[in-house]
């Protein structure tokens, strides 16, 4: 994905990074701009540890103001726990909810200061 600063953006399960593909040494231009998103190995709100969260792929998109929207997929297919389920799906609640689209803003501020 080409970002508003014309750099190439890509994601891992936990990070989004960017680099200049036209630089003499593209590798030297790599900058990680977001870290520590819920990736493959996560701990759920109830303390359960998962080695393989179900949907770690971080699809993302910029809007024209340089805001960044990121898919933080759900940790499981259906959040079903042993019956009876009486509470909302905890992993999908709160300020770092999974099964959500996260908004990071404003990414252009950093680019324009460079």
């Amino acid at each position, binding site marked *: 994905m080409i970002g508003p600063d014309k750099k190439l953006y890509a994601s891992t399960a936990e990070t989004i990074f960017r680099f200049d593909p036209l630089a003499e040494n593209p590798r030297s231009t790599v900058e990680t701009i977001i870290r520590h998103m819920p990736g493959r190995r996560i701990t759920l709100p109830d303390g359960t540890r998962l080695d393989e969260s179900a949907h770690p792929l971080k699809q993302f998109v910029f809007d024209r103001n340089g805001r960044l929207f990121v898919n933080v997929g759900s940790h499981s297919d259906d959040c079903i726990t042993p019956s009876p389920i009486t509470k909302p799906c905890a992993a999908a609640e709160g300020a*770092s909810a999974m099964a959500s689209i996260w908004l990071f803003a404003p990414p252009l501020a950093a680019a324009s200061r460079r």
Partner: protein
Amino acid sequence: MKPSDPDPPHTVYARGLRNSMALVLHPNFPDTGYAFLQGENGRDLPDIFKPNEEINAIEQGKHYGWPYCYDLSTTSLEFKLVLQSGSVRRTGGEDDRQHELKPLVAISRAASTAFSADAAERRRSASGAGRRDRGGILLACIWPLHGFRHLWHRQSVFERSGYRFA
């Protein structure tokens, strides 16, 4: 957001979206009436072709149903007690009590499907759910054979520039 800030702050823009495998914005977004569309893989029912996949028109702060419901407004029975307890917000009308917003389209996993945004617009107008996708230029294609089954899948939404609704 800069390299020296390892954990830039985020907000949860929209929730209840199981896995947003496709995200696409109209170039004029976030102006009023311009689309933010999302292609979503639904949960896995025993029948590998069920339920449908979804295309949603994303609006800030809305909940799109997962894991409490799927398809256009089918309740996940496993969460019946949660829904009855009222701890999950219900703001839709009529039969739409779990989704705050229904999907624009629910798309069968049984066949590859492409649809254009005007079809989505008609559906959306019919549902009365909002106008966010007016002026959309979006051509969405979904290959709905869902991943992690015996058939690989990928769904994508493509922009088609120069397309406007009358």
